[in-house]
Structures are given as C-alpha cells and as structure tokens.
C-alpha cells in the first residue's frame, strides 16, 4: 500500500496497537516503565567522522544526536502464574537518509513470557525470555543461548529469546534449567524444526562457592549468525576473604563472528572455538565496588585477521563502487561494505581484553560515580567511560558520561583506528514510572 493512507496507517497503527495492548494488560496487572532521552555529542577528529569503517562519512554521522527510548513493562500474576511483557519503543532511522523521522519508530517485544510454578520444585516459562547467565561483568562465555552483550555497555537490556524453559529445583542448593529455543525469526514466516536448539544449565551452590555448567545442541549444526552455536560451558564463583573470584570458559563448535576466507568470502570459523574469562570483585568498606576481568575472546580476530578486514574495507574497487553514480552498483557495494563492517564490535573485536569497573556511591549527594576501563592487549586500544549518575528523585535519574577510544600502539587495524567516533559526551534523562 502506498500514498497518504499507507503513511497514515504506518504512523498510527503501531501506536494504536501499543495502547490497545497495554490498556487491558495494565488494568489487570502492574504497568511500569521508563522513558529515557539521551543527547550525544561527538567530538570529530581531523578527518571528521571518516575512518576505514566509515569512508566519506557513509553513515552520515552528525555532531549531535538524540536517542529516545520508551520502555514499558506489564507484569501480572500472583502466587504461581506470572506474565511478563517488556516493550521498547525507539525512533527508527530512515532507510535511505539515515535521518530520524518522528513518525517512524520501532516497537520491539523484548520480553513476552508466561511462567507457571507447579509446586516448589518445578517452573515452566513459555515465550520470549531472558536466559542470561554467567558471572562476568563485561563478557559471559558461559552464556550459550543469548546474543553477545556489549562490554562497553554491559548493563544494556538485551532482547530475550523465544522458547520454552523448564526449571527443576530439587533442593535449595541445586538449580537445573532445560530449554528449547528457536532462532530469531528473520522473515516473519517462522522457523524450521531444524533450527531449534536444546540447552541446559545446572547451578550448584554451597559454602560460598557456586558452580555452573551449560550446554547447547543445535539440530542442524549449521552456521546461523542470528542464532546460537552448539557448545559447552562451565563457570565457578567463589568467595575468599570477602572477595569474589570467578571464572568462565566455553567451547563452541563454531564462531558467531565472520572471518574473511580466501577469495574474500565472509564465513564463521569452524570449531572448536574456545573463550575464557577470569575476574574478581570486591566492595571496599567505603562502598567502592571494583570489578577486574581478563577475557580471552576465541571468536575475536588476531592481528593478521584484523588486517584482512582492514584491507577488505579499503579495497579501492569497493570504495569506487560505493561512490558510483549508478544506484544499483552503489547499493550493491553498500551491502557488501555493510557485511564487512559486521565483524567490528568494540570490546569483542580482538583476542585479549582487560576490564576494570569502578562504582563509588556518594550517598550524601544521591550520586554514583562510575568508570569503566577496557583495554585490548593485542590491539592496543584503550576505551574509557567515566559516568556521573544523579538520582534526582524517586523517578528521575540524570546521567552524564564521556566515552573515549585511544590507540596506544598505532595499530591501524585496531578498534580505535577503525572507529569513526573516538570521543563522545552524553547526557541522559531517565524517568521511571
């Protein structure tokens, strides 16, 4: 459908559905949510926002941008049955211009699940749910079911996965979780049986120590970037002298990241691919909370692989095609270029990482000071993110942050060198209701 009617439907329908969905559910359960607006200012370098990842500012980055997010949670149920709905509304960028239009927005069902307890030892959850697990703050190699989280913003909410989970709780110290999950729907037409994955997690706790074992099996065993990969994971958390020490490791049958193969084809790497994390956390008497972690990212890229990606991004024929006046050629080149940018994930790009996170509460001022330092040992990239969070009232939170990427070793294929934006400041206002 085209024309004004289609535009009207496109503008009104999602909002109408949103309200229709929330009203009845809100009447029976509890409705709460959060609206957040973030103003972000980029500090451009001598080349503006141009980098190998963004030639000629292909992404059309501007100095100042605003991000809105309305997150609404509807929950209902008492006793043994529960409903959980979490819906995010965010503005959507225009596909061609990259600009944000007020009538274009995206409704994402982040969670949509019902849970039912049968006695104390059995719980079943059906729907879109979070299966997040692990002990690490920045990374969780143990987590086989969920998409990769962003170590630069590890507290960001991730969309859940569709599936059925059975919790078996045979005692207070043992927790078993068995689940079947489907790959995310890409086409909207559903998924085939073969793309279902079966997974499990066992947690055992006792005497200040907790152990976790995870496993995931895919029926097709095929490469699917949007779905999980088969693997095994294990983790431990133990308390020694008040400090928490933890470790996680996983072995996957293939990577979830794309590697450039001979001939320039992008493919995942066949396994076994292993990753591991070790960390410690401690809360000092004054309230300072410190987390330190080392992560070996088996799905990341070594120097040679990063240079392969850089060469592909800087391929003169591809760059020439990007600037072609022939729209078909330019569109094809843009798609090829976009595929080449997929491997770039700050904090998960190279192999060896260290992270230090500090949170210091200033109770008298209702503030938290926090800072994250992320260093890529093999690519020499340092990421810094200090933040000040002010809890202005019971509902309003204001947050000021700076994010900076520094190239300490002159690695042209490293994360800092590739990033089009190396310094940014942001101010976020968040209201919970």
């Amino acid at each position, binding site marked *: 459908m085209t024309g004004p009617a289609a535009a009207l439907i496109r503008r009104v329908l999602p909002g109408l559905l949103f309200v229709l969905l929330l009203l009845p559910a809100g009447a029976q359960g509890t409705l709460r949510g959060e609206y957040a607006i973030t103003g972000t200012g980029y500090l451009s370098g001598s080349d503006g926002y141009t980098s190998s990842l963004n030639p000629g500012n292909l992404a059309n980055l501007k100095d100042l941008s605003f991000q809105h997010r309305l997150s609404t949670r509807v929950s209902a149920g008492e006793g043994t049955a529960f409903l959980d709905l979490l819906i995010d509304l965010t503005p959507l960028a225009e596909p061609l211009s990259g600009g944000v239009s007020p009538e274009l927005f995206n409704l994402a069902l982040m969670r949509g699940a019902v849970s039912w307890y049968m006695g104390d030892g059995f719980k079943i959850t059906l729907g879109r749910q979070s299966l997040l697990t692990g002990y690490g703050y920045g990374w969780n190699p143990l987590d086989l079911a969920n998409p990769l989280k962003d170590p630069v913003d590890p507290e960001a909410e991730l969309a859940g996965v569709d599936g059925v989970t059975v919790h078996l709780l045979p005692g207070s110290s043992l927790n078993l979780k068995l689940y079947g999950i489907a790959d995310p729907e890409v086409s909207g037409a559903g998924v085939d049986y073969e793309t279902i994955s079966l997974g499990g997690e066992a947690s055992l*706790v006792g005497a200040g120590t907790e152990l976790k074992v995870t496993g995931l099996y895919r029926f097709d065993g095929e490469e699917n970037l949007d779905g999980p990969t088969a693997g095994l994971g294990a983790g431990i958390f133990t308390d020694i002298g008040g400090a928490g020490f933890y470790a996680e490791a996983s072995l996957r049958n293939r990577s979830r990241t794309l590697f450039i193969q001979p001939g320039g084809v992008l493919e995942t790497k066949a396994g076994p691919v292993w990753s591991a994390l070790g960390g410690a956390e401690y809360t000092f008497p004054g309230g300072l909370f410190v987390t330190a972690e080392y992560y070996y990212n088996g799905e990341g890229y070594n120097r040679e692989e990063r240079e392969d990606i850089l060469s592909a991004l800087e391929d003169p024929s591809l760059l020439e095609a990007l600037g072609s006046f022939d729209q078909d050629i330019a569109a094809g080149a843009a798609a090829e270029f976009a595929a080449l940018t997929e491997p770039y994930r700050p904090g998960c790009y190279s192999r060896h990482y260290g992270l230090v996170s500090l949170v210091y509460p200033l109770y008298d001022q209702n503030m938290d000071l926090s800072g994250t330092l992320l260093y890529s040992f093999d690519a020499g990239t340092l990421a810094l993110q200090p933040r000040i969070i002010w809890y202005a009232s019971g509902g309003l939170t204001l947050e000021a942050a700076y994010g900076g990427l520094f190239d300490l070793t002159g690695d042209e294929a490293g994360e800092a060198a590739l990033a089009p934006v190396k310094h940014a400041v942001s101010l976020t206002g968040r209201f919970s209701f």
Partner: protein
Amino acid sequence: MKKTLSLFLTGIIFLLAPLSAQSAEDIIRRADKALQGPRLYSVSSLTIHRGDDVQPPQVMEGFGMEIDGKYHSLTVYREPARMRGTAYLMAGDDLWVRFSTTGRVRKLSSSARKNSAGGSDLSYADMGEGNQGIGSKYQAVLRGRTRLEGQECFEVELTPRRGSAAPYEKVVATISVEEYRYLQIEYFEAGARIKTMALGNYRTVDDTAYPFRMEMVSHTRDSRTVIETTTVELDSPRVEPRLFTTAYLESLR
C-alpha cells in the same frame, strides 16, 4: 597463701564466666524470638533522612525462612519506581542481587553484604539477617544492667562466633529486662561505634511482640534511616521455599 588465693579466684572466675555467658545467650535468644518467625513476611517503608533532606520512601517486601538449617531471606523493592524489582536474596552467607534495570541476577561476594542497601544506613546484611536474630552469628557476654527509655535493661556485648561471617566487629544490644525486647543495638567497626539502631512501637503479632519501628542512626555521617513496618505475618503462607532461588529472582518483575 597468695598463690592459693589467686588459684581460688581464677577458679571462681572460670566457674562464673560460663554462667554469665549462658545467661547472656539466653537473653539474646529470648530477644531474637521477636524478630524471628518460621516463615516471616513483612512490608516496610524505609525513609532516609540526610540532614534536613528527606528522601522518597522505599517500600519493600521481606520474606524469610530457614531451609536445610540455613536462614534464607529475600527483599524485593516495590517503590520508588526506579528501584521497583530490585531484589536481593541471601542464603546463609551467599548473596545474589537482581538489578531491576536489566533484570539480571548476579552473585556478589560477601564483602558486598556490608554495602549500603539502597543508599540507606542499613547494609544488605542488616536487611537480610535482621530477621535471623543476632545470636546465630555472635556470642554474647552480659556487660551489666542499664536504663533506657525509663526501662531496666540488660546490656549485652556480642562478638563474632568463630568461623561465622558476622558483618560487625562488635555489637552491643540493650534489651528490656521485663519483656526481653531489643530497644537499642549499637554496631562497632575498627573500635568505633558506627551506627545505632533504636527499636520501638512493639505490637503483638500471633503472640509475638514485633518492633514496627526501627531507626538506624549513622555516627559517621549526618544520616539516619527510619523503617516503618506496615505488615507482618508470622508463619505466612506467602513464604514458600521456591522464593529463595535464583529462578524466582529471575521471574521477579
């Protein structure tokens, strides 16, 4: 002669010390009864006063029970909006926190138990272990008698039991002689008194006198926290073993 007298006095002290300790332990056990319940459910409002500034009240539900000989407690924040769904589960010395912002459940080390709960003058340990009673982690010695709020009181000094993960170096409890009620609890760290809790407004719930008002005053900053309990249910059917699992924490909203 002096040696004989000295041995005699030492013997007397050794004989009397256990009696005194036994008496103090008994006092603590009787006072703890008011805070304990086989399955305890409560709803409380916690208000932080910083100087003249009064923070929005934090409303929370508390659940507590003993499972397999280990005390379990769950505290779930209901208000204010930004904290709704934040919860912490304590099973013995193990602590898990559910962050409402992400819904993620994370296990934290025992050092975090001393951290302030929601910016208040109470720590996670104070909140989670309060209904466990003090006697479980501390050994008691009767210091003597004193008067507080016009009442004759026992003054009992408590120091951590060997091997227990007691959060404080020393605790001094003032307990009414007549009704064995905690009236005041003083907490010590590094030789200094760091905060004092006053307990009052005792009301009878199922034949047990429960303090419906507690006030924790910090001696290290200009801050105090008042906890007003609105609901207490002893042997509550709301409190079930399944609540004290990370699986339940994950399903909290």
